[in-house]
């Protein structure tokens, strides 16, 4: 057992730090209001500001959007631990570091797509030229995802899609839908689903952004009206999509912005140190110290769960239950951190970033709202617990 990083890994971490210092605009990390593990303040990255575009291009040039991918697919050919180090550092600076295509779509295509699909998509994804959005949920199919009704009908060389998706984060600023559709309504629900890629620009696709409680257009409802896609856009085999989806969901659950927790915690601690209340620094109040220590401890626990998943991937082990444990723990930590922030800041915690007298750019105020999405998106905490219990511990479903 060895909890130290190798020399090579430490050197890589430094390389990432140097890159960020050089390429990320000076005040980005302070002003960026992203709350760790929330899904509602991601919107900022998806907004195509020139700075995000440029930074992403620089990352792509280094193969860093797809660090653990083999060189042949445009990756840097590094280890999963190095990829985790990269994401930990990127998220510490709240920097853009890839999105659904690079972290979910691409890895899933690499596992299940045929050679034609890999050639068509992977290099473009690695270059940061395409963005995917997740077209999973429907108005009547959220946690019960296998009950989706969006239908794809076989039409020779194409599929024709009709239906509706909802809650797709960043659909309005992406190029392609990474989508689950029902291709065989006669089969049992899990066995009649296919995973397909749909061009947002295809005729019949209507995207309507929805405003979340944080005040951002982060997610969308999207309507598909006789949308035609070529069959080569089916990922893997038709009607095997549920299986691929489970793997894609694990990839999603592994993509936790660990550094963001550390950074946000440091900012709250700094606030507590600098702010006086009743004649002493807030950080000297025993109850506040206790709560801050509790956060530091839980962030440590979370880090260990995070590194574990990278270590497993490097040993070709599948972090299945571990991905759910990581997602569950870190998202609930997101909520606890927001609560702690509010306790530390008191009245000031309720001020929005634009308000006079606000601190930390209103991050805690926004975080209290965004953390609600953390326990719901990418599989609710209840679903994660079901997975841990049934798939992980072998408890019966009935």
């Amino acid at each position, binding site marked *: 057992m060895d909890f130290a990083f190798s020399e090579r890994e430490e050197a890589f971490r430094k390389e990432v730090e140097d890159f960020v210092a050089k390429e990320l605009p000076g005040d980005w990390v302070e002003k960026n209001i992203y709350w760790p593990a929330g899904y509602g303040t991601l919107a900022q990255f998806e907004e195509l500001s020139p700075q995000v575009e440029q930074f992403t291009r620089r990352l792509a040039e280094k193969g860093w959007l797809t660090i653990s991918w083999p060189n042949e697919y445009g990756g840097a050919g590094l280890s999963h631990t190095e990829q985790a180090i990269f994401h930990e550092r990127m998220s510490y600076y709240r920097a853009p570091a890839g999105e659904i295509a690079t972290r979910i779509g691409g890895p899933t295509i690499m596992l299940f797509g045929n050679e034609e699909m890999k050639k068509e998509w992977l290099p473009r994804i690695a270059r940061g030229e395409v963005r995917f959005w997740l077209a999973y949920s429907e108005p009547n199919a959220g946690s019960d995802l296998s009950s989706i009704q969006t239908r794809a009908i076989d039409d020779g060389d194409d599929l024709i899609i009709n239906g509706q998706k909802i809650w797709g984060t960043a659909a309005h600023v992406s190029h392609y839908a990474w989508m689950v559709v029902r291709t065989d309504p006669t089969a049992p629900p899990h066995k009649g689903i296919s995973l397909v890629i749909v061009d947002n620009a295809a005729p019949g696709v209507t995207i309507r952004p929805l405003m979340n409680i944080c005040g951002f257009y982060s997610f969308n409802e999207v309507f598909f009206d006789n949308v035609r896609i070529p069959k080569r856009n089916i990922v893997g085999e038709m009607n095997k999509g549920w299986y691929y989806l489970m793997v894609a969901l694990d990839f999603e659950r592994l993509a936790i912005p660990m550094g963001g927790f550390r950074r946000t915690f440091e900012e709250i601690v700094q606030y507590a140190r600098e702010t006086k209340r009743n004649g002493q620094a807030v950080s000297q109040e025993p109850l506040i*110290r206790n709560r*801050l220590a509790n956060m530091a*401890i839980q962030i440590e626990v979370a880090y260990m*769960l995070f590194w574990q998943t990278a270590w497993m991937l490097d040993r070709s082990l599948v972090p299945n239950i571990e991905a759910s444990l990581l997602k569950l*723990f870190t998202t609930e930590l997101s909520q606890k951190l927001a609560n702690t922030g509010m306790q530390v800041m008191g009245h000031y915690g309720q001020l929005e970033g634009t308000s006079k007298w606000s601190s930390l750019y209103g991050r805690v105020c926004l975080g209290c709202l965004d953390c609600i999405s953390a326990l719901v998106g990418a599989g609710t905490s209840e679903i*994660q617990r079901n997975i841990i*219990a049934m798939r992980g511990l072998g408890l019966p479903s*009935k």
Partner: protein
Amino acid sequence: MDLGLSEEQEMLKKSARDFLQKECPKRLIRQLDESEGGYSSELWRRMAELGWMGLVFPENYGGSGRNFLDLAILLEEMGYNILPGPFFSTVILGGLTILAAGSEEQKTELLPKIARGEMVLSFALTEPSASYDAASVKTKAIARDGEYVIKGTKLFVLNANVADYILCVARTRGTTDPEDGITVFLVDARSPGLTCTLLNTLARDKQCEVIFDNVTLSGKSIVGKRDEGWPIVKDILQKAAVAKCAEMVGGAQAALDMAVNYAKERVQFARPIGSFQAIQHYCANMAMDVSGSRFVTYKAAWKVSEGLPAALDAAIAKAWVSEAYGRVALSAHQIFGAIGFTMDHDMHLYYRQAKAAEIIFGGADFHRAIVSHELGL
């Protein structure tokens, strides 16, 4: 980074699990809990034969020369099975103190005896104030003609009633700095003036009141340097906290395993109760607690093993695991329902362990205070 066990470590873990399952069944545990001595000398002898006592002592002192991480793995198995007896006080509190601070003469004389299972040790630190800070050490050791006379009361002293020697933390000099002027003494348990009374505790773990009524010691009984004993105590408290965490991780795993197995078998409403979401969610929470606890514990143990500064990691581990084991034990009880509330059932044995372990060497709040201090808050 390597989060797996070596082959040697896997073997140690498995052999310990199998040995304890066979040689220390719950039936024996209950017997020992009810007994005054609290341990089986036959089992003790066999553990010594396996090299468990001397696991981390250097080979020239009769040990196996393995490291603290290996010891943590062994302790996890002891926690998994529950192992009544003075292993912890003898090896961790006593043995590691002598190893770290004893003179060459003391190490040569005592460590091989401990390794052979021929000596039981106890560590008398806490007093009626029940605190782990230096200012709470009020037991006095007064120098007189090259000897020392100890007077005071120690409380919550593990296994003092069966110890051959008791390490006593006493104040040899009163100064303005409470951490100055403390000395660690090795006291023969049969010394005149030393009275031991067994306390009846939740975990039946043989904690004692030890009264030192003018117990006279030679100057040779000092471990380390006179007046400079507090750093020794701090160091051993840190190691003990991590060692206790390793035990707790084992216990929490056992509680989880028991509860999950029961949930699969117990049928109510015509289905196994493990098919109900509330039960599944308790189990998932427990799995999360066990997993996180294991990592922070082994990270701290690794730091101790490597001789790296471990104050922050030890405090993180003890704070977290103290509460995690408690949560796991309560959730497991919840799954067992009424049957778990019976004396005959094994679940309460783990719950008792969890409560005792939570407190000893400082509870969660105590260690969170250390964390905030170490973080410079």
